[in-house]
């Protein structure tokens, strides 16, 4: 009886979360794909059903002919969507590079800190991550506004004569992304840098290598797994970001997460917003696979 229970328990440990994710993670994607192929309708839900299993298999196959890629053609036709995709990838890419440039020195400084204060530093990086994303983005509105704190400060210092326009520009989105995602960059970088064997760098120095070139030849290449993981953790969610472009970017800037949101909530066009989501997912598949692989490698190294 005990053995049976144990076997059952070990089964359940796999089966329960597996089923949960199949139903609430994988199945929804299939539904998104299905609805992206249907025609919009003025009804609730606002689309024409593509499949209706009630009619049996014959009806199912008859309906297959009705599938339309018109939503996708619509996306390809309208430069608005293509521009939104391109500018999302561009903005996310630039922000990721800036985040790396800002995050690396922080992670490096943490890894070289005395072991006794490292837990404290780690906690200081993690703490903002626990604080609401929305709140942290909101905090920047008050800083970046034309009459905001940054401009007041710069005017006070006499650096500028007229307030800078930062809010509602792409610059504000970059600042928002770098700020919000910085902990995601620092943590994996710190994890690889901390494990690194310092004697390698000492050996290089002993052999006459200047510290800067020792960094580029040894430290940086060895930290690449952390760089890849950090960049993916920033880049992938940033491409589909909604809150940051909406609150800091204003109406001028174009990002696909915002387009999807307004397509869904303002235009109530579910099929088109599903098509937008499918294309976004396809664009992100390669970086997501890269991320998965780097995670799997890290786990093997951990084992």
């Amino acid at each position, binding site marked *: 009886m*005990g053995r049976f*229970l144990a076997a059952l*328990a070990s089964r359940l*440990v*796999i089966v329960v*979360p*597996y089923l949960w994710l199949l139903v*609430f*993670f994988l199945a*929804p994607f299939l*539904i*998104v794909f299905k609805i992206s192929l249907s025609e919009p309708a003025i009804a609730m839900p606002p689309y024409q059903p593509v499949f209706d299993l009630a009619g049996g298999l014959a009806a199912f196959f008859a309906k297959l002919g009705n599938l339309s890629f018109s939503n996708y053609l619509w996306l390809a036709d309208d430069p608005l969507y293509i521009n939104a995709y391109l500018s999302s990838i561009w903005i996310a890419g630039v922000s990721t590079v800036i985040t790396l440039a800002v995050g690396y*020195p*922080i992670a490096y*400084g943490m890894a*070289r*800190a005395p072991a006794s204060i490292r837990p404290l*530093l780690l*906690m*200081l*990086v993690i703490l*903002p991550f*626990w*604080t*609401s994303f*929305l*709140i*942290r983005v909101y*905090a920047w509105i*008050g800083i970046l*506004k034309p*009459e*905001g704190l940054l401009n007041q400060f710069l005017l006070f210092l006499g650096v500028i004569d007229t307030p800078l326009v930062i809010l509602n520009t792409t610059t504000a989105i970059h600042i928002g992304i770098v700020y919000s995602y*910085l902990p995601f960059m620092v943590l994996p970088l710190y994890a690889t*840098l*901390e*494990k690194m*064997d*310092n004697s390698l760098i000492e050996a290089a120095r002993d052999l006459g290598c200047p510290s800067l070139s020792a960094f580029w030849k040894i430290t940086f290449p060895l930290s690449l797994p952390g760089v890849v993981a950090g960049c993916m*953790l920033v880049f*992938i*969610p940033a491409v*589909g970001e*909604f*809150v940051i472009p909406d*609150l800091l970017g204003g109406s001028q800037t174009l990002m696909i*997460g915002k387009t*999807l949101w307004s397509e869904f*909530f303002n235009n109530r066009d579910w099929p088109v917003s*599903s098509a937008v*989501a499918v294309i*976004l997912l396809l664009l*992100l598949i390669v*970086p*997501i696979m890269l991320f*998965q692989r780097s*995670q*799997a490698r890290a*786990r093997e190294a951990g*084992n």
Partner: protein
Amino acid sequence: MAGNWSRFNIVSLVLGFAFLYLPIVLLVIYSFNESRLVTVWAGFSTKWYVTLFSNRGLMDAAWVTARVAFLSATVATVLGTMAAIALTRYTRFRGRMLFSGMVFAPLVMPEVITGLSLLLLFVAINFDRGFLTVTLAHITFSMCFVAVVVQSRLVTFDQSLEEAALDLGATPLGAFFQVTLPVILPAVIAGWMLAFTLSLDDLVIASFTSGPGATTLPMKIYSQVRLGVTPEINAVCTILIGIVACGVIIASIITKRQEIQRQRDERAAARIIG
């Protein structure tokens, strides 16, 4: 990689932390501003906190959010811990690749996609949107974060401890609850807290999956933020930051104590065995 802590290292840390904390500190300071104009300091006042508590809509939203966060974090912790065990203990089972993919993908999945897909699922199965759908959605994405946190603890767990318990006649379930669970408990608690705050923070997924009567606090804050920066919102944010900061600090103290206790136990056990 401890080395010499150069001046460059210290300066980059100071600047980095200033960048991370200054916006939050400014937000907290200006929540105590007398003036309605958020960026002009007009003296200390707590009046925005007082008006807050008479704001019925805000209080209702806070209550909804607290219930969703508590419920979803609890279920997500159970499911996420199971997923972590499945991934570390059972290296071969049919569909393991798909399973690990489904555990890690939500960590980076843009929220608009997760939100839209869950909403379409609920509509497809004719599930009325409201409290329950938001909770289900939050369980789904936060269980993956729990799984990652717990898994990182499980891989360093010495499995021979559990085997020893089995040799001494413990049932597998007993061995799990008496040996493994106490060791990974700090990670499980950290996972719960992470799931709780993720749910507390979420705007996008909640906006898609929520229905009438289940407006969460982030949704409420968002709708007010769109109208402009106000000291009331600063006050709400300050309270939320305070709650989270207290929680994190308490949790880290608990974890630290347990860690010390565990190391002491392990040393004692090693002495007996050795």
